[in-house]
């Protein structure tokens, strides 16, 4: 292997390949009683939608419990957070260094902790309500960890609470510049910052155009889409979001970031809040003279109650979890649960998530060529590590260069538009047939090659058979495979079971066998590495069925 070259490349970007050991997701409660019949393939499918990667053990639990009971159990799991971990570490003089530990705890939770569904939904939310380490938050790791914890806490909560907390979180305040936004000063041609006003509506809640309940564009009499807002409404919301900054400061002007205030909601400084009337969505005028808190509640209620939110959030969460191209009926069904969870409550995200995963379209009997999606690159990695107990001697997963290698990483988007667009369609078949494949936006020749090479390193270099691992190297445990690796077919079966749920195309199986047979039967480590490498770099592993 040309490992030297890849290693030097990785060294040159300052990436440390270490990892730490996590266990498996072992400590689960006792199994509840009678399971509806779930096939192994269905269990794998569910787990790849709802966790950071299916494992044999968890698939057995799904088969034993049934899908709904498994989801219900997941939603009751104690939640795994990030900030407590960072708070237990010494504070470095250069705060940016702590981003390594922030990414580390994200991986620890994603690979090892049992509250997988919650973590996976929080990750999906972090791709809708984006903040990022890349930019002004580089030296605010506590703030980012706290933001991620908030998404984790609200993953099955109410969307209205979620956008309330997102709006006042100082990480978002910094990222979309609501923090420090002040009322107009006409003498200096200063007017409120429109950044958060615009992106909350475009990206977090309602989108640019009015939607039908099935997610399609609502058209006017000339068959044209209808914009959801105009500049006057943007300015109305921009005035709403004035007067907020870090909590606990002596004054608005003196509010500066510290370790504590970057993790707690922003505070209103009333003298800097605009007291005029403000135009909001759907013709609502907020009267003059309200407090900043009243204004904010009115504005977020106004957004929350816009009929777009149901289909908008349904599409985005379905795309992150299940399929790039949900049918109108799927969107309609999930959006209806957003509108009413069955108990008259709007915005119940737990009910929405459950509706997404329990829908027939999440488990089609006769899959179509547009069912499923491309896995996010990061999830290809976590799936491998979960299936093979990826861990390091030190316990760490210091993959802070994740965005560089995979084109994405935890809270590491290049901008508020996320790693990829929900509307991206690559030229050719997909675009010509008006479908989308968002994850393919970052599956460029360059990024795919980087990832393929990285998997080569992981499979051949960073495995349990390597005696030269360093304490931060995250390695996969291939001892089970090595024990049977002299038997090519048995080896292929085992790897295919762990990574593909037992289903593999003829071509991949044939090529795996052909390559494994080129390696001496006593070289069990490289035979195993070859098998795993061929699966994790294949189109069928990149695909989530």
């Amino acid at each position: 292997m040309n490992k030297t070259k890849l290693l030097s490349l990785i060294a040159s970007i300052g990436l440390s390949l270490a990892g730490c050991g996590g266990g498996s997701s072992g400590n689960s409660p006792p199994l509840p009683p009678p399971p509806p019949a779930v096939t192994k393939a269905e269990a794998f499918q569910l787990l790849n939608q709802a966790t950071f990667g299916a494992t044999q053990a968890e698939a057995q639990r799904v088969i034993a419990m049934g899908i709904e009971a498994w989801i219900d159990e997941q939603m009751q799991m104690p939640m795994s957070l990030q900030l407590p971990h960072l708070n237990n570490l010494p504070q470095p003089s250069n705060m940016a260094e702590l981003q390594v530990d922030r990414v580390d705890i994200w991986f620890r939770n994603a690979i090892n902790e049992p509250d997988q569904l919650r973590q996976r939904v929080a990750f999906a939310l972090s791709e809708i309500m984006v903040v990022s380490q890349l930019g002004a938050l580089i030296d605010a790791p506590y703030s980012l960890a706290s933001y991620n914890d908030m998404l984790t806490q609200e993953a099955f909560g109410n969307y209205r609470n979620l956008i309330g907390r997102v709006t006042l979180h100082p990480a978002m305040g910094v990222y979309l510049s609501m923090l420090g936004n002040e009322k107009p000063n006409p003498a200096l041609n200063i007017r409120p910052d429109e950044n958060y006003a615009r992106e909350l509506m475009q990206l977090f809640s309602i989108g640019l155009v009015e939607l039908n309940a099935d997610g399609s564009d609502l058209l006017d009499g000339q068959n044209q889409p209808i914009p959801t807002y105009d500049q006057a409404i943007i300015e109305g919301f921009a005035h709403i979001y004035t007067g907020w900054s870090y909590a606990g400061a002596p004054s608005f002007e003196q509010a500066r970031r510290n370790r504590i205030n970057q993790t707690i909601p922003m505070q209103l400084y009333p003298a800097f809040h605009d007291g005029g009337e403000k135009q909001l969505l759907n013709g609502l005028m907020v009267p003059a003279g309200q407090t900043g808190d009243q204004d904010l509640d009115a504005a977020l209620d106004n957004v929350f109650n816009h009929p777009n939110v149901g289909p908008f959030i349904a599409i985005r969460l379905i795309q992150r979890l299940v399929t790039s191209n949900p049918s109108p009926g799927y969107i309609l069904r999930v959006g209806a649960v957003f509108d009413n969870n069955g108990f008259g409550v709007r915005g119940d995200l737990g009910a929405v998530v459950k509706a997404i995963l329990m829908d027939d379209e999440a488990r089609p009997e006769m899959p179509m060529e547009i069912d499923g999606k491309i896995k996010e690159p990061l999830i290809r990695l976590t799936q491998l590590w979960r299936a093979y107990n990826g861990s390091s001697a030190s316990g760490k997963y210091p993959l802070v260069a994740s965005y560089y290698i995979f084109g994405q990483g935890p809270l590491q988007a290049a901008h508020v538009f996320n790693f990829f667009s929900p509307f991206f369609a690559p030229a050719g078949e997909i675009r010509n047939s008006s479908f989308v494949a968002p994850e393919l936006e970052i599956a460029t020749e360059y990024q795919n090659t980087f990832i393929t090479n990285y998997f080569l390193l992981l499979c051949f270099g960073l495995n349990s058979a390597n005696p030269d691992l360093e304490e931060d190297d995250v390695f996969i445990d291939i001892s089970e495979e090595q024990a049977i690796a002299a038997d090519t077919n048995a080896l292929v079966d085992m790897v295919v079971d762990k990574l593909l749920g037992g289903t593999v195309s003829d071509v991949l199986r044939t090529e795996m066998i052909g390559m494994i047979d080129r390696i001496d039967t006593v070289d069990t480590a490289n035979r195993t590495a070859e098998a795993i490498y061929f699966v994790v770099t294949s189109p069928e592993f990149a695909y989530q069925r």
Partner: protein
Amino acid sequence: MKKLNRREFLATTSAAAATAAIGSYPGVAFSQVVGTTAPFPDYKALVCVFLHGGNDSFNMLIPRSNAEYSVYAASRQNMAVAQQDLLAINPVTADGTDYGLHPSMSGLQGLFESGRAAIICNIGPLIQPTTKADIFNGSAKLPPQLFSHNDQQDQWNSLRGATVSKTGWAGRVADLIRINVTDQQMATNISLSGNSLLQSAEETVAYVIGSNGPLEFSSFSNSGDPNDIFYQQRLAFERVINANYDTIYERGFAEVQRRAVATADLVNGALNDAPALNTVFPLTPLGNQLRTVARLISVRDTFAMQRQVFFVGIGGFDSHDDQVMNQPALLGGVSEAMTAFYNATVELGIADSVTSFTQSDFGRTLTSNGDGTDHAWGGNQLIIGDAVFGRDIYGTFPSLELDGADDVGGGRLIPTTSADQYAATLANWFGIPDQDLDIVAPSIDNFALRDLGFMI
């Protein structure tokens, strides 16, 4: 020097020719089907430098004479650049105002004054010439979703006007010239900054590489030796990605892998053999990207390239916050990297064949939000190269007065020149005949000037 295996390109395309290319490179394969070949006699390259986030370019080009500067300063208040700091430029065509550049852009000043650079002022997406009255009385046909980042980036890249388009103007250019570049062994469009709509069209797919060039697959060999396991690994990998798959997703993914495997080692091989450039580039993301573009241009003959479009880009221009603090580095970085790139084309003896130009989401509000600015519309763009009629400002410089003739509110300026005219001018130079300019720039017929005249 080895060349790409044409068979690899042709394999997927001949059958698909009628149905639009899935997985084909532009030009290369399709020319075989079209049949007529009229090769260009020369080489030309366009380099798009995309400034993501919306460059506040009314702080890049600034009126310097007293009367006009005072209007500027009154509007911009705490966002204003000091008059005495402006770098003086002296355009050939006088409009009665003196102009200057942001003090961080000395490289650009040198290029402008020596006739190597031009500026197109107050340009942006338009469907038709548009006045303030048209907008306020509702008669204006406007591009949808003005002031939204991704939509206005798409406008610049696709020139789609009011109707949805899924192709980019440089992609359409590549489609149009495919019969003229039949010998090319690489994609006409190369991106060093990810997938861009600009470069994508019916029959065109851009090849996406990194800032320093393509990556090669670590475990693949081209030795042809059947006992070489790395050669066998490559063949086995290719058989997997060449297989038939049931879903659009696997097919889309496999197609990218096919392009990557087919091209990376050949391009890198050529780059490794290329003589080093003496020109020093800044060690910035934009500097690295433009250095790689210059190196790729230096090996153009290896791949028989006649026309190339490169896409590079950097972010950070969405200056809602801390604009005064951040703008010098942003604009200075653009000036320094683009100047180095121009110098490299001089070193390569090809400065008259390579034109670099900027695009950006939009200009920004003349007013401030306290410590930054918000999304607006018209802005100023740069064109650099020896084929540019330089040392001039093209278009009509707008009134910078708040609520003035060009302001739709808050200092959002209505463009006085359209992005369609800009692209059409560049495309015309690139070899697109006048009658095809409406394919490149669909709204071009709505504007009196089909060519802004800034290219030789």
